[in-house]
């Protein structure tokens, strides 16, 4: 696709002459690099509760961010008005980070490779509203009829379509159309007049509406949410202290996101403030662990054709057989450390400065049979579902909260446990991985990662793994 066929050219009449003029203004006081990030997002969401469709919302946000980099300094400004004078003004503000003679913009702007990881004819956003209403109603009905102990059901469905255009003084120009959809079901169940317990499940990705109609119908999410709530009704207090932990496949990959991923983002490492700084080539995990961050998997929530700096995303090996291979870089950190961008420059919106971020982070499958992994544990905890997690990248300490877990006694999964937080130290916990299953699974598409106030969609994945020693924060 050329600029002239792009969304921004068609809707707002933006031409390559305009882009070159804005970039020239951004570099009018010097600087090594400048870029423009145009964004137009249309969103829609539905909320159903007490079987009443209570809310329906649509929205539009648009704007452009202008960035100038000089040395390690970044100047940034944005405008929510795409008028030429407003963009020139933003470019002048961003330019103030530098002071010297003007730098040159490389022309002509050339489009970076063509790829389509989410080839969608009709994004959910463009499909009929009534079809989406039908989906949330189906989830509600299914959850309510699944079990008489269910007394409260909330269903939400949200989707968006984001058009982006990135143009940079290094000659890059890229366009993308990024759909994203997600359905959530949360339920409350109780036994008689007992304490209620909640269950939650959701999923989605860069997919068409048919994904929710065929592959992952609303009933799938509803039944899973109900199942989780019912499991919690039987739960006993989780143990307190160090124990062996087995993580089930899929969403528990959040461990990798917290324990490893953030610590390998290059902005922390070029500053030497991560527990993983200056450790490339060293053994930082059990040799059973190979961990990748891959932004190129079709239709995944964390995937992108190009990152938010116009660089194509890649499959990046972070840790190979336990040895640290590389960091996740954006253009700035690549320039400072003398490498190439790994396609990891992401931002929340046109109002935000890009940073190195993860896409889909997972561990490759190993050789062990998952049942054999559980059988090998005399006493421990088996976790299959998690809420959120957090990490202090400097000390390496991380937590994540198990929302569905079970006791393992003599090699058997026994009682369900109440929610508990697990805590560990990144490099140390990864050294304690003693078995890796052959059942790699990616999560179902609900991940949101926050860093310095910016949220972006991500994915995680993991096979069943055994960690010999971790601290479980229960009360028993």
């Amino acid at each position: 696709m050329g600029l002239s066929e792009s969304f921004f050219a068609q809707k707002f009449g933006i031409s390559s002459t305009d882009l070159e003029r804005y970039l020239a203004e951004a570099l009018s006081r010097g600087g090594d690099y400048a870029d423009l990030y145009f964004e137009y997002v249309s969103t829609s969401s539905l909320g159903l509760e007490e079987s009443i469709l209570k809310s329906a919302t649509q929205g539009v946000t648009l704007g452009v961010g202008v960035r100038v980099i000089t040395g390690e300094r970044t100047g940034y400004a944005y405008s929510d008005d795409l008028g030429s004078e407003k963009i020139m003004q933003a470019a002048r503000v961003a330019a103030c980070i530098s002071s010297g003679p003007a730098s040159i913009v490389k022309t002509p702007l050339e489009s970076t490779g063509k790829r389509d990881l989410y080839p969608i004819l009709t994004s959910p956003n463009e499909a009929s509203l009534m079809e989406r209403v039908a989906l949330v109603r189906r989830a509600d009905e299914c959850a309510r009829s699944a079990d008489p102990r269910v007394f409260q059901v909330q269903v939400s469905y949200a989707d968006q379509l984001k058009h982006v255009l990135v143009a940079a003084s290094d000659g890059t120009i890229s366009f993308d159309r990024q759909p994203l959809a997600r359905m959530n079901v949360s339920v409350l169940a109780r036994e008689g007049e007992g304490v209620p317990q909640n269950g939650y499940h959701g999923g989605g990705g860069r997919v068409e509406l048919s994904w929710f109609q065929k592959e992952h119908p609303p009933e799938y999410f509803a039944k899973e949410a109900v199942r989780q709530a019912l499991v919690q009704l039987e739960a006993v207090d989780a143990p307190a202290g160090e124990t062996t932990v087995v993580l089930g496949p899929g969403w528990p990959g959040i461990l990798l996101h917290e324990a490893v991923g953030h610590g390998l983002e290059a902005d922390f490492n070029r500053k030497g403030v991560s527990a993983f700084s200056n450790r490339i080539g060293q053994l930082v995990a059990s040799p059973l662990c190979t961990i990748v961050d891959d932004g190129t998997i079709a239709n995944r929530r964390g995937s992108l054709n190009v990152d938010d700096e116009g660089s194509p995303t890649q499959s990046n090996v972070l840790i190979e057989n336990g040895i640290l291979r590389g960091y996740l870089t954006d253009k700035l950190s690549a320039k400072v450390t003398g490498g190439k961008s790994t396609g990891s420059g992401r931002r929340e919106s046109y109002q935000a400065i890009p940073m190195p971020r993860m896409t889909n982070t997972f561990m490759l499958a190993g050789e062990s049979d998952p049942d054999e992994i559980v059988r090998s544990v005399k006493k421990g905890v088996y976790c299959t579902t998690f809420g959120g997690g957090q990490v202090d990248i400097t000390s390496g300490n991380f937590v994540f909260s198990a929302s569905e877990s079970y006791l393992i006694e003599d090699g058997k999964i026994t009682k369900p446990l109440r929610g508990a937080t697990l805590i560990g130290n990144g490099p140390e916990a990864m050294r304690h991985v003693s078995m890796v299953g052959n059942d790699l699974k990616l999560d179902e598409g609900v991940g949101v990662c926050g860093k310095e106030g910016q949220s972006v969609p991500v994915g995680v994945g993991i096979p069943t793994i055994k960690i010999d020693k971790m601290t479980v924060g229960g009360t028993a």
Partner: protein
Amino acid sequence: MSANLEEMTSEVVKRALGLGASDAECTASEGAEFSVSVRKGEVEKLKEAGSKAIGLRVLIGQKQGSAYTSDLSKEGLEQMVKAAVELAHITSEDPHAGLPDPSELGKIDGDLGLFFEETALVPTDQKIDYAKRAEAAAMAADERIFNSEGAGFGSYAGQRVFANSRGFVGSYRSSTCSLSATPVAKLGEAMERDYWYSMARQFSRLESPEYIGKKAAGRALRRLGARKVDTQKAPIIFDTTVAGSLLDHIFEAASGDSIYRKSSFLVDKLGQTVASDKLTLVDDATLPATFGACPFDDEGVPSRRTSILEKGVLKNYLLNTYTARKLGMKTTGNASRGLCGAPSISHGNLLLEPGELTQEEIFKKVGRGLFVTELIGFGVNMVTGDYSRGAAGLWIEGGEPAFPVSEITIAGNLNQMLMDIAYVGNDLEFRGSVNSPTLVIGEMTISGQ
């Protein structure tokens, strides 16, 4: 500018009625943000920009729809109004949906002191200088401070406008600025970082850059050499910087949304003793120049002071119009909304009444236990009250700090934790919209080694 945006919201409301809405409310915000971060004495990032956006909620009878846009052109606004009205047609009749009664609308008289021109007028050079000085003070504090994640200055000045079809139009301006520093300390191979910050509506009320830098360095240094402790039950002392999170949990549990959904451990407990008699908690959005103050809530209802806990007894839920009607009560003026969707609930200033003891006296009284200075993770279940979070802090032995602790969790259940408050400190300070003195919980489970 102010008049423009007020006119625009009123116009949008009128247009919505014209397209068939029976009621409508429109909110708009505009603001200018500035932020600079410095690292190792050099500017690292500098951002400056302004933005505007508008949101609309309409009702057709008791069906509602909403829309928002940052495209304030005539076409953009028209598209928004049409979308909201169209969406209202597809939603269900909700018997409790609706705007506040006209008699409930209004605003606090007089100037609440939320906006200070001086904050908007601080020259860029001075903001950069402040950040540089805070970082330099942190770096100079001790030779074990070997690196920095930088220091930052941020400021925001903006305006919020609200209009509805029952005759309310109102707006207010606000300003904030903040300064923070995040130094990194090292002992052998182990690194620890910590931070300190100050936030103010008025630039001249910020803590000095030197104080912030030095305090941040002290906080990073005292973490060096941190270790796990044994798994055990012990008293937990929440420092003022983390005690507020417990107030947040009480707020969330007492919010009308959680109550009518029965997703709160405080459901059906109005009038009952739910906490120690040492706890008296209010929500007060009327205190001038504070972070949680505003003249009216996001439905146009005047802000007020509401008692949540009085000597441990649950006195009130915090409500907006919808949740009040669901529960057969009156709104407490706690409606909150972004630009889109129906109002949710937020607090003004959450304030816990202070006790008599200083933090040192509390250490002495407790004798042996954990002093928590940081909490991480999200392990709090509001339905059951189950609580399990990552923690770091100092071990207290013989009534004094003995050594730093990290990589542990503390766990319990909020129902019991609130009943088990042993001491409340006298050190209440206004640092944000949630403010608590030091709090001690008699016993929780520590998971360590």
